[in-house]
Structure formats: structure tokens, C-alpha cells
């Protein structure tokens, strides 16, 4: 996913270096006929693709069974979301090798890609994206304190330990409720045993999140979601990060304005890289930059 992005952005920036001149006074960007970076398109396709892959299980094709909290791929590869694993580990107060081996590959993937889960796999990003088309998000002012999210995550973990139930994953997780909603809908339509109250609850949670998105864009993602916070910590050590090329920044701050996770990009433009815990690698800053990928990049390996 991000590999194509990296190649794409590199290819485009190389093309740009050949084609356009240095920005001078009075030059307007983008000039007509120049290639645009399609990160958002690819990203939305990947998001949709993952959802559709999970939908295949209702056609009795066992490509990806379950949901993004816990799933089984191609018959026997078991996966479990990292935060769900932590909650389950704490609530059961015992270690099983099965669950650990299911969490390991996911942890491995996101140690490489950081918080790209939120931007490239989470179905809520897709839904929020649809809401954003209706009402474009206006990121105003200072970033709201997202540190409270760590407190929320710890509270859920502590609660799971004390009560003995994985609290967030079972009740409030947007991922669980998304897939439960779809499973419930399909089963209800096929007249199979399914509790209608489950469908109501899950749709209630989803509607609440969508309304929240209308009111305060990505408040859930930026501040509340403990899954995001966990992967955000992975950002600190992941291979994928934002890097900045030594090039003349026009200080237009378009990158900051396009970022809906309120990551302060322009401030760090003179540093080699940025590993913000809120960055979900959606690519809007890369696209939004006036130089279109020359300055702000998402990089997976060592910068050249």
C-alpha cells in the first residue's frame, strides 16, 4: 500500500524536477497539465477493498473471516488487533500462545507502517471520509489535547483487568460494532438467528460516531480512540514516517490545513523527519503541498 505511494510520490517528484522550474515570484501552482498525486484515491480503494474482502465471508468465501478486531485469513492465519489482545490478556490474566501468535503479525505490520492502520484499514476512516465530503472538516486553531486519549486507553485496560471483560473491544469499539452491524444485517436479512438488539446497539454506536464527526471532525480519531492511541505509539518506532526534503518551502501551510489529525507539519519542515503519534499517513499533506511531493513525503526506508 504505502510502498506504491512512496514509489508514486518519488516518481512524480522526479518527474517534477525535470519538468517545472524553481518557484519564482508570480509563478502559480499547480500549472495545468501537471500530474497530480493520487494518494487519497488509492487509500480509499484500499479501505473499500478491505471492507469488501471481509464481506466475502457472507458469500461463504473464506478469504477474511471475522472483523478487524479478530479475524482469520485464508483458513488458518489468525489475527487479532493489538489493543483487543491487550484487553483480552488483562481481563483473562493469563497468557496463551494462541492469542499471542495471533497478535504478533499485526504488531509486526504496524511496527513497520506505524499508525497507517487508521488511514488505510479502519472502516471508520472510510465512513468519516464520506461525511467529510458532505461537510469538509475545518481544522481550526491549536490542536486539542490528545493526551487525554492515553488516559482513556489506560482506563479501558484497567477496567478490563478489574471486571474481567475486554471492555472497549466488546462494547464500544467502532471496529467491532461496524462488523457486528454488517453481520447482523446480513443474518437478519437471511432470517438466521440473530438478536435484533445487537443490530440496534451497533448501529447506535455507528450513528453516534458519524454525528460526532459532523460536529467535531475526527475527534474520535484524534482524542478518544484507544486503538489509534496504541498504533500512534508505534509511530515512534515505525519505519514509515514523514520526511522532509531540503527544498524551498513556500510556507503556504497547506499541509497543516489539509491534515485532519491536527499534526503540525510546517513547524517541523526543517527537521529530517516527523513521527507524530497522531499521523495516520493519509497522504493529504503530500498531496496538498504546493510542490506536490518534493518537500513532504511518506518514507518507508532510509531517505536518499
Amino acid at each position, binding site marked *: 500500500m504505502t510502498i506504491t505511494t512512496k514509489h508514486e510520490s518519488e516518481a512524480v517528484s522526479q518527474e517534477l524536477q525535470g519538468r517545472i522550474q524553481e518557484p519564482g515570484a508570480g509563478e502559480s501552482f499547480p500549472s495545468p497539465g501537471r500530474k497530480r498525486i493520487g494518494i487519497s484515491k488509492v487509500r480509499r480503494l484500499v479501505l473499500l477493498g478491505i471492507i469488501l474482502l471481509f464481506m466475502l*465471508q*457472507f458469500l*461463504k468465501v*473464506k478469504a477474511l*473471516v*471475522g*472483523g478487524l*478486531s*479478530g*479475524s*482469520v485469513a485464508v483458513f*488458518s492465519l*489468525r*489475527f*487479532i488487533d493489538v489493543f*483487543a*489482545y491487550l*484487553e*483480552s490478556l488483562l*481481563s*483473562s*490474566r*493469563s497468557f*496463551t500462545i*494462541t*492469542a499471542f501468535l*495471533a497478535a504478533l503479525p499485526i504488531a509486526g505490520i504496524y511496527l513497520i507502517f506505524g499508525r497507517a492502520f487508521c488511514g488505510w484499514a479502519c472502516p471508520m476512516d472510510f465512513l468519516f471520509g464520506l461525511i467529510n465530503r458532505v461537510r469538509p472538516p475545518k481544522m481550526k486553531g491549536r490542536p486539542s489535547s490528545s493526551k487525554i486519549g492515553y488516559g482513556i486507553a489506560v482506563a479501558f485496560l484497567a477496567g478490563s483487568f478489574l471486571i*474481567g*471483560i*475486554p471492555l472497549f*473491544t*466488546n*462494547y464500544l469499539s467502532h471496529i*467491532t460494532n461496524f*462488523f*457486528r452491524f454488517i*453481520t*447482523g444485517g446480513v*443474518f437478519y436479512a437471511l432470517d*438466521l*438467528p*440473530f*438478536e*435484533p*438488539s*445487537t443490530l*440496534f*446497539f451497533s448501529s447506535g454506536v455507528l450513528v453516534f460516531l458519524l454525528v460526532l464527526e459532523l460536529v467535531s471532525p475526527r475527534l474520535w480519531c484524534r482524542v478518544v480512540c484507544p486503538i489509534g492511541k496504541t498504533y500512534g505509539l508505534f509511530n515512534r518506532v515505525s519505519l514509515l514516517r514523514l520526511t522532509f526534503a531540503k527544498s524551498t518551502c513556500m510556507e503556504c501551510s497547506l499541509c497543516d490545513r489539509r491534515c485532519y489529525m491536527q499534526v503540525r507539519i510546517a513547524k517541523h519542515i526543517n527537521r529530517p523527519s516527523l513521527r507524530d503519534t497522531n499521523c495516520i499517513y493519509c497522504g493529504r499533506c503530500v498531496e496538498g503541498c504546493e510542490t506536490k511531493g518534493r518537500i513532504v513525503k511518506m518514507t518507508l526506508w532510509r531517505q536518499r
Partner: protein
Amino acid sequence: MLFSRRDILRILLFAAVDLTLPFSPLHDRPLYAAKEEFTGPLPNIDIGGFIRPPGALPEKDFRARCISCGVCVNVCHTMKYDAISIAGIREIRNFGTPSIKDMRDFPCALCMECPRHCPSGALQKIEKENVRMGMALIDLSLCFGWNGDVCLSCSKACPLGGKVFDFYNGEWGNQPYINESCVGCGLCVKYCPLGGSAIKVVTREQYKRVRNTYVLEFKELLEMPHEERYTIIYGRNLPQIMEKGRFIEREYR
């Protein structure tokens, strides 16, 4: 006028009933009105909790491990058994967890696919014989085999067959008894030809609680003198059985 308005109305009504009869739920009713919505077997014994999918850890550990990801539900759906369903919001503590609710129409077939797929380890891979989902209890006042008939449907449906079923053949029927090797899959519940089934699957914990009473009743019936048994069967049991009816197509052939 050839037909009065009343005649036309009658004709239309009959036409409507005739045309919709193949699609109505009344179509396949047997001779006596078999009502599956009656109180089920053993109304005095509660299920006692949730019948979890096979291979489940003990209830407290299961609840702690289960992340309600829905893999078991979907695997069961892919296998076309559709036995596992998700608990609703009314069960607050168990919301989202899987259980086998409708034993009458969608029992567990013991395909053992769900433990193989459970990513959180709430369902463990075990042998079919070691599954302890629950315990099937025959309602001795409703079972055909205990009230003058010879049925055998439940034992034929049982995947463990002879290991689980003991027959106390007597003058009042073949009198089946389910011993403690029962895994609780519920196939016997589905194939019992009595309307609403004469078998109920309860949790293992609940079985421990009711075992003494149940075994006592069983022993009493076996040792009962002829006249007393006759009175019970013809006086109390058979009217109930007649009301519930017999579904021939349910019998495991």
C-alpha cells in the same frame, strides 16, 4: 345479477386463501395442531446460562478471552450450520458473545471449525468427545419412548450414539436415557419429532444442580407399578403430547 355481492366476496376470499395457502405457515400442519410455541420441555428447569460453542473455556475465562470478533459466527455460517448467534444487549455482561440459542432449528453439528478459527483462544481445539457444551435432558413426561411408543430419533441423531444413549426397554416403550458423556450439541433436540421437542440442553453447571432431582424422577418412573404409570401416562402425559403434536419430517430416519 348472477352472483350477489356476498357471493363475489366469498369467491374472492376463497381464491385468496387457496392462492396463498402454499406460502402460508399453515400448509404443512399435521393432523393435530402442533404448536411449537408452547412451553418447551422441562419448563421448570432453566437453561442455566449460555450454551457456548464447542471447545469453550470455563465460563469466566471464556468471557475474559472472548473479544466478540464474530469469527466463530461467520465460520458457522460458512459451514451452513448457523448454530452460533450473538447475545443481545439485554445480557449486559455477555453482550456480543457467541452462544447456541436455537437448539430446535440450528443445533451444533460438532464440525469443530470454530475452535480452529478462534483468534483469541476463547475456544480451544479439543476432541469431539471432550466437548462439554451442555447436557441434554429428556423430558420424561413428553418423550414418546417413555409414554408407550418406540421412537429412537434422538439416539439416531446423536453423533456419539451408543456411547451416550442407554435404553431401558420396557412395556412402556424403549425409554431412552442420556448419560453423562453427552456433549450438549443439541442434534437430538432438533430431531425429536414431538412438537417443541422433548429434550432440553442445559449448561453443565445447571445439570450439576438439577441432577439429583432428575435422576430421582427417572428411577421412580422405572420402578413405578403398572397402574400408577398408566394413570400418569394416559392422565397427564398423553394429553400434553397430543396437543404438541408429532412432526414426522423431524424424525431422524
